[in-house]
Structures are given as structure tokens and as C-alpha cells.
């Protein structure tokens, strides 16, 4: 097809159909009592710079914004920078993840009003592996809670999940077991197959695992990354089995692809602790992870506290094809009882 001016003129019209939202600033979501209005929802794919450009557009379009809810802290900070650049004050910011060098620092610096922690579960995973090595019965699944970091509470206000209670009980009852070296002497060798080191949150998980392992003189940790490659992660797990690791920690890149090597490990009596992302079968000892839905709800609760009389909200989303972004959105929607306006 050759482009004629006529055909070309059609293109913008077609696009208009996709773009047209009436141009007005009507809310995209509104709470049951009408107090909370989400006026702008933009996907920034977890990236701080995208958060900034999306926020710029929101500021250009909307005369009054009271609060920004960002699915992670860097996007929240990007939104903060946009407001600062455009000279718009009085807007509050809530982010998620609360990594020590990012969210917690942003809260301390006054950039974010609150950051909700997404637990790395690193320390818990090491403890669970040690308990499993001593044949202590573990629950199949431990869902940890979160902490809300605010300027008033820089140490974080804990919101316990069901797994925190079980974990605390296990740690209390089995405190002596955790300190025991292998019966045959030497050290417990624990392998950790991280899916990628590319994301700061994964780096924080690695640091937490390494720090916990260091607290036990009788633990030797082998920490390796699969560099975002499923096949490499399968190889890593098998390598841990062959090199005589006593226990394996695993944060799978893909749930089903990692089933086979985990099955092999379990068949040899090597406990497998799965972190954060689920495995596609029952071939593991214990799963430990956070709950993004609960975190979204905690964010919603914090938003209610920051805006007691309600207000206009901008939501900056992570990559919406991923479950963390979907759940962080859903928890927020549930807590504020948001729905499309009629």
C-alpha cells in the first residue's frame, strides 16, 4: 500500500479513538464514599525516570494532586523530583520496597512520606534451611508481613503476617538447634541460586542471606546468580547437588522450569527452601515470601492516615504484566474500596 495523503490523514483519527478520554480530569477510580479519587494512573515499569516523566504529565494535566502512590520507591522519588521541578508543593508520596539505601533513605530525607517494606526473607530462609537440616518439621509455606517506614517511625512499624508468628515460634523453640554444626563435624554448606543480581531488591536479599549466614560460624554459604537465565538456574541447582551442598535456597526465575532439579535434590534428601517466587510443584521443603496484596493494603491504610479527609491520588504502577504490580494495585484498590465511577 502506497501512502496517499488521504490514507495518512486517517492515522491520527484512528489513534484519537484510542487516546480519547474526553480530555477532562474525571477520576479513573473513586472510593465508595467519594473521598478518594484516583485521577491519573500511569505505568512506569518500575523505573524511576519513567515515574518522573509520567508524573510531569499528571502535573501538567491536573491542578490539584494530594498524594502519589508509587509501586516502588524509585518511581516515588522520580515523581517527587517532577513536583520539585515544576514547583508544586504539598503533595505526599507513598512508595513500596523500603530497601535500606533507597526507600528508607528517601523517607529519612523527607522525599517520601512512607515506604512499605517488601521483605527479602533472606534471614528467614537461612534459618529455615538450618532447621530443615536438623529434620525439624516446617510448615509448607511462610508468608511474612511487612514494616511501614515513616519519618515518625524510622525503624519501621511492623505489620505481622501469618508466617512471622510461626517463624518466631520456631526460632524460639529451636534456638539451640540453629547453633548446632553438622553431626559429622565441619560446616553446613548451603547453596543459594538467585535468579538475577540485576535488581536492587535482589541485591538486598543477597546481602541479608550473606549477613545471616555470617552470624553462624558453622555455615558456609555459596551464593550464585543465574543472570536471569532459567537454564543457568537449573544448572546451578544441579551443581549444588553435585558439589555436596547440604541445603539449597532458591528464588526461581520460572516456577515450572525449576521443578526437575528440585525434585532431584529432594530425592537425595537435600532440603530446598524456595524464596519469593513459587515453584510449580510440591518438590520443596518450605516456601517463604512476602505478600504484595497485604503490602498494597498497608499502603492504602497509610494513605488513609496521610489524607484523613480524602483527596486526589496519582497511581504510578510497576510493570502491570507482573504479579507484584497487579497485587500492589489490587491491595490499594481493596483497602480504599475504589471502583470505576458510574
Amino acid at each position, binding site marked *: 500500500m502506497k501512502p496517499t*495523503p488521504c490514507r495518512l490523514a486517517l492515522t491520527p483519527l484512528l489513534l*484519537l479513538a484510542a487516546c*480519547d*478520554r474526553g480530555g477532562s480530569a474525571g477520576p479513573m477510580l473513586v472510593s465508595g464514599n467519594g473521598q478518594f479519587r484516583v485521577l491519573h494512573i500511569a*505505568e512506569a515499569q518500575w523505573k524511576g525516570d519513567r515515574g518522573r516523566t509520567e508524573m510531569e504529565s499528571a502535573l501538567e494535566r491536573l491542578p490539584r494532586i494530594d498524594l502519589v502512590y508509587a509501586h516502588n520507591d524509585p518511581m516515588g522519588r522520580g515523581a517527587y523530583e517532577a513536583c520539585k*521541578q515544576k514547583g508544586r508543593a504539598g503533595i505526599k508520596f507513598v512508595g513500596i520496597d523500603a530497601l535500606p539505601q*533507597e526507600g528508607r533513605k528517601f523517607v529519612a530525607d523527607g522525599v517520601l512520606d512512607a515506604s512499605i517494606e517488601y521483605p527479602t526473607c533472606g534471614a528467614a530462609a537461612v534459618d529455615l534451611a538450618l532447621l530443615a537440616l536438623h529434620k525439624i518439621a516446617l510448615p509448607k509455606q511462610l508468608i511474612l508481613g511487612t514494616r511501614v517506614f515513616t519519618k515518625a517511625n524510622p525503624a519501621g512499624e511492623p505489620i505481622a503476617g501469618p508466617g512471622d508468628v510461626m517463624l518466631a515460634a520456631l526460632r524460639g523453640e529451636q534456638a539451640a538447634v540453629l547453633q548446632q554444626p553438622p553431626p559429622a563435624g565441619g560446616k553446613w554448606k548451603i547453596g543459594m541460586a538467585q535468579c538475577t543480581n540485576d535488581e536492587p531488591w535482589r541485591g538486598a536479599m543477597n546481602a541479608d542471606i550473606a549477613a545471616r549466614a555470617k552470624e553462624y560460624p558453622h555455615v558456609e554459604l555459596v551464593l550464585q546468580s543465574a543472570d536471569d537465565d532459567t537454564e543457568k538456574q537449573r544448572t546451578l541447582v544441579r551443581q549444588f547437588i553435585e558439589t555436596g551442598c547440604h541445603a539449597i535456597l532458591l528464588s526461581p526465575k520460572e516456577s515450572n522450569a525449576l521443578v526437575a532439579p528440585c525434585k532431584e535434590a529432594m530425592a537425595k534428601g537435600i532440603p530446598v527452601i524456595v524464596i519469593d517466587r513459587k515453584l510449580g510443584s510440591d518438590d520443596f521443603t518450605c516456601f517463604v515470601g512476602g505478600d504484595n496484596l497485604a503490602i498494597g493494603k498497608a499502603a492504602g491504610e497509610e494513605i488513609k492516615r496521610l489524607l484523613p479527609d480524602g483527596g486526589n491520588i496519582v497511581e504510578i504502577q510497576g510493570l502491570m504484566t507482573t504479579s507484584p504490580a497487579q497485587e500492589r494495585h489490587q491491595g490499594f484498590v481493596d483497602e480504599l474500596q475504589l471502583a470505576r465511577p458510574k
Partner: protein
Amino acid sequence: MTLPAWLRPAPVRALLALAAVLLLGCIANAGGAFFHAATHFGLLDAVGSAGILAIGQCLVILGGGIDLSVGSVLAFSGMAFAGLMLEGGWVWPLAAAAAIAAGTACGLLNGVLVARARIQPFLATLATMVIARGLARWLPELAGKDANSKFLPVEVSGPQAWQWLAGKSWLGLPNTGLLFLLVAAAATLFVKRTVAGRHLLAVGGNEEAARLAGIAVVRTKLLAYGLCGACSGLAAVCWVARDVQGNPAAGAMFELDAIAAVVIGGTSLQGGRGGIGLAVIGLFTLAYIDKVLSLNAVPDHWRLVVRGVIILAAVLLQERRR
């Protein structure tokens, strides 16, 4: 069916695509937001780094090559800039110079691989892309931190120099945007008014003929890739200031945006035909699509579709009837 005569010159066609997007913005104006000057100044600010990258890319494409490494080189140079300033305590002009030098070195490596070792540009720069990304992720280790970690400033909005660069000064215009326009003007002069620029077009148009005409092909290609690397280094400095951090994951897929901007403007991927001005128009076309979609809070899945359709429409517009 032929195009009408007035539609034939490349700049007219490039501007027509931009005009179509601007028209779209005027219709879907998000309650008048599209008519505010601040919206357009904001866009100029956001587009700065990407623009400088596109200019470097345009030089390489004009010379008949392609550079897939610009995004990774941006990450590497940016990490060098942020690391030297935040961890090394260097003053900003030195750190910026080092970042541009790092970018230039990567560009020259591309040039050597393509011109001397005669590796296909696509493959040579693909290799550099991977290497530069690896180096960007390793740099924090050199500074005594964990590999892959970010360089985060102590101050909320970064050192003074970053704030200045990411801010606005003259007439409320953004500094990064002005820098981009300055680089664009310099590159236009280079291509149109200098002997080396003419040689670049000749090499891109027909390498064999250029060689027979006595043009130093190897040196010309080295220059193009070197300048592209320098642009990546400069873009990195702007990017770090705007992003307020050195991020080893920065710049992913930027190479595709840079190539898209060049092609949408009407520069031929075969080399030799096109120009910097066209790339600038192409860049603004892409940036305005994003702006209009973002102002109207269009969901991301539709943005992808719309973006693709506009790229296709613009490329169709560029198709020459032979």
C-alpha cells in the same frame, strides 16, 4: 501512484508526521494541558539525553553503520561519572570529561572493530553493548561496593552540578534540552559544512566509490563511531543528573529509541542519505507521541500499539518511490 510533488522532499515528509502527532495532541489535549508552554518545556527537558544519543546514532547511520551499544555505553559512562563524583570526590567538570572520554573510548572500540577488523556493525556493536553493560555493573565493585549496586547521592536531589544540569535557566528553558539543541546544531554544521562530514556521507552512500575517490574510509568510520561514543558519554552525564543516581541498569533499549528517531526522521538505514535535522524531527515525533499518550493517561498496552502504528505510518511516509 506517485506522491504529490510537494510531499517529496524528506524534511516535508518528516515534518508532516510531526504535524500529525501535534494535531493529535491538539485534539486530545487533556483539558488544555497540551496548550501550556510548561508542557512543551517539560518535554524538551525529558528528551535531552535521548536526543543527544539519537544525534550520535544518526552520524553512524549516515556513515552506513549502526550502533547498538549506545544504551549500554550510556550506563557505563554514567556509572563512571556518578562513581567518580560521589565515591571518588572528583569535581564535576573532571568527572564529566572522564565520562565523555569513557564513551568515546567505547565508540572508538566500535570503530576499530567495524573499520579495521571488518566485523559487521550490527555484530560488533552488539558485542560492545554486552561488554559495556557488564562493565557498568562491575564499576561499583571498583569503588568498594557490591557489584550491580547504584551510586546514590547523599543529597536529596544530588550535587549542585546535577541540580543545575537537570534544572532550567535561560527563559525557563531546560538546560539539558538546550545542550541537546546545541549538540544538534554542531552536528548539523559538521555534516553539512566540513570536509569530514562530506566524507561521512560519501562513505555511507557508496563505500567503494568513496575509497576509490581517495577518501580515508577507515578514519572516517572511526570518527563517526568515536563521535557517537562521545555523544553517549555526554547523554550519560545529563541522564545521571536527571535520574539523580548512577544506575547500572540505565539505558536499556535506548538504542532502539535512538534508531527509531533517526529512521522516522527519514534517514536511510543504508547510509548516505538523511541528516541531523531529520533525526531531531523524528525524535520530537516520538517524544510527542509519548507525551500525548501520557497526558491522556492512556493505558500502557494501548501506548505500545499506538507507538508502533505511528512508527509504521512515518516509515511508510518515508518510503521513496523509485
